[in-house]
């Protein structure tokens, strides 16, 4: 880049970072002050999010970082290679503006923001990431590696098959993950051995166990707000994994105490909502916050950035490399309900299971403008829910705050209709 470009880049980068801090602080402020039922266990997570926005980490020592642009990247392998995975998917409007100049006009805000965050060097790392692992999941994400820009972190394309049911696709994925293991060793300069891979699997499994406990707790009466739960999952990559797990366990204990303490609970009249579709990533909590302000209770979501991040498990039969690596591969492919896979019937079944387990009253389906995958599945899901007599609200939106007024009308009307249905059924 020449001097002029350099200057412009500096301005863009610093203003985007400033904006990120402003956006994050605003959302954190709302989370902490707008509602009356705050949990003390959430303070840690608010703290992590606060620091993330400022590009800081709680632990500033020099570590090796591997950036990831999708949840399909097997993080157990990254931990085993002695590096820290850091997620690049961004929820900041400022970042989506920064990335927008490199991407087509009608591209998804999330992809814009991801690219923008990388381009403006806004990742919460203490040293430059060694590589950006970019899976070939959705069209727009996979082409990021070929966009000419000043990004000097090498992109590594992780080949994810477009289907997950056939034996051929699964075999292909095993080979890719094996290759990825070898390549990771080269990138980080550390050999992945049986012992450190086993340890990595255990560390992630601990986090998964805590997360699943939270999932179970939310099936019961209301104890934690949906936006708080989203934030918990979103902060997963931004602090030491063991610390995150520990604090989540404390939070779970607090929630259990809350529920056991109040035995005369009345059934809350707040409609129970399931969120699905393009993921709301901090600080883009525009839609979930609005739902909660309008009186809805988000009890569960099917976002890759939260619920699906830590749900699926690794089951190893023989604790040797030849079985651990395919076990890890299976975790990321088989149960995944991302619409980048076809067919994706597992998503239909998962949604219905969640609706039943969480006693969901209504579904809000979010699609980012330009996200073809979620848009294409919306009709099938809409018909499915219609058959099951579950009301669904389809919202097409992006990261910009311009459509808040229009959204509020729609959401308010939807929540009102759910409440009316609920009350009429009780009264």
């Amino acid at each position: 880049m020449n001097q002029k470009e350099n200057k412009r880049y500096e301005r863009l980068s610093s203003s985007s970072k400033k904006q990120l801090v402003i956006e994050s602080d605003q959302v954190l402020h709302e989370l902490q002050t707008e509602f009356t039922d705050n949990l003390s266990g959430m303070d840690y997570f608010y703290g992590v999010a606060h620091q993330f926005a400022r590009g800081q980490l709680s632990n500033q020592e020099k570590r090796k970082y591997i950036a990831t642009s999708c949840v399909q990247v097997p993080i157990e392998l990254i931990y085993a290679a002695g590096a820290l995975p850091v997620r690049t998917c961004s929820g900041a409007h400022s970042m989506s503006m920064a990335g927008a100049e490199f991407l087509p006009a009608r591209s998804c805000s999330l992809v814009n923001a991801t690219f923008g965050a990388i381009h403006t060097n806004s990742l919460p790392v203490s040293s430059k990431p060694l590589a950006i692992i970019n899976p070939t999941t959705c069209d727009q994400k996979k082409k990021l590696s070929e966009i000419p820009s000043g990004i000097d972190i090498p992109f590594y394309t992780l080949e994810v098959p477009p289907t997950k049911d056939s034996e051929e696709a699964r075999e292909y994925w095993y080979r890719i993950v094996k290759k990825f293991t070898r390549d990771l060793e080269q990138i980080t300069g550390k050999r992945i051995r049986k012992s450190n891979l086993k340890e990595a699997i255990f560390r992630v499994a601990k986090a998964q166990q805590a997360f699943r406990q939270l999932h179970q707790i939310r099936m019961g009466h209301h104890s934690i707000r949906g936006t708080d739960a989203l934030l918990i999952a979103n902060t997963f990559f931004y602090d030491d994994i063991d610390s995150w797990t520990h604090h989540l366990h404390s939070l779970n204990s607090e929630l259990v105490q809350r529920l056991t303490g109040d035995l005369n609970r009345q059934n809350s009249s707040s409609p129970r909502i399931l969120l699905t579709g393009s993921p709301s990533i901090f600080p883009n909590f525009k839609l979930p916050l609005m739902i909660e302000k309008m009186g809805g209770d988000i009890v569960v979501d099917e976002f890759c950035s939260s619920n699906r991040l830590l749900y699926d498990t690794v089951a190893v039969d023989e604790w040797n490399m030849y079985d651990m690596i395919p076990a890890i591969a299976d975790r990321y492919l088989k149960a995944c309900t991302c619409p980048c896979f076809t067919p994706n019937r597992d998503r239909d079944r998962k949604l219905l299971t969640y609706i039943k387990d969480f006693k969901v009253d209504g579904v809000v389906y979010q699609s980012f403008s330009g996200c073809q995958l979620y848009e294409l599945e919306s009709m099938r899901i809409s018909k499915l829910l219609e058959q099951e007599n579950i009301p669904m609200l389809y919202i097409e939106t992006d990261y910009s705050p311009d459509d808040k007024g229009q959204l509020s009308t729609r959401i308010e009307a939807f929540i009102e209709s759910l409440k009316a249905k609920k009350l009429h059924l009780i009264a």
Partner: protein
Amino acid sequence: MRKLKRYINNSNISRFRLIFQILAFLLLIYGGYVSIHIGTSIPTFACPYNQECPGTCYLISAQHQLHNTWASLFGFRGKAFLIGFLTFILFFLVINKAWCGYICPLGTIQDWITKVRNLAGVSFSRYDNLSFKRLKAIKYVILFLLIIIPLGMSNSLLGLPLFSEDLSAPFCQICPGRVVTPLFIGDTSQLFIDFTNTTTMIMSTLGIIVLALFFIGSFFKKRFFCFFCPMSALHSLFSPISPLRLNKKGDNCTRCGNCYRVCDVGIKAIADDIEHKYMVKDDCMMCFKCVEACPENDCLEVSFVKVPLFTSTEEGFFKRNLHLDNDMKNPSCTIIEDEPKRK
């Protein structure tokens, strides 16, 4: 009651199975030393070639009983056959295919060989879908032959001459159990090739080949022999009516495939089938590793006449597979009014 259920669902069935297998092995190999006799219709390999075996496996009885003329089969010999057959079915039905997983000594030996391979750090192999489909018929062919050949030895089938007497108990002549089980009492007499005539040469050579395949195959593939076992083929005809059942609730399945991953005999349906309920298929030996590996609550279940004995639970999964204890009281048991059991 809840506590007991929770304890069982969190328990390590594989460890229990290991101990049970050792005990059953001791019984079936050395039982004769203490004059135990458990009959001649045992629904698993219990080889009389091992003189201290406390009984005989049903296949050898069947092969001998079928070596009779039609006339006697429809007469008094037939009654003996029927009684033997019914005894076999009844014994079998009580614990279904768990005979294979918990009692069969050949199975136990194969599991031990697998453990040796695991310790040596050598990778195992699996059949791909196509090979699985094509090769699984072999055990039915073997079963068919071991019924037809004895019949053909006493009766003229389709105008063919009577089969040679050297083909007596044809399956036993190639069964690895005949050679392996006596080895455990120090008897190597079955390890030979019979040069008497062509038929005996072929059959005994086949026997040695099958033995070699048994050891090499089960080293590289878990429970290799069970894929070709005619006892398993016979079992599969009656398994659907057994009171001991392994059921799946397809709605609760996330198709994570953990169950298939750990399955020694490679039953794909346990992971991919979400329509059907009864999951004991192909060579399932009811080891219940699948139930142990299932991370969803109430998806896979072992029941006896509709009474649930062992159910998959999230808590049990983390405890067994990853040694992670649930420090806090299980929330789904104490908080939600309804049981975690889903409809």
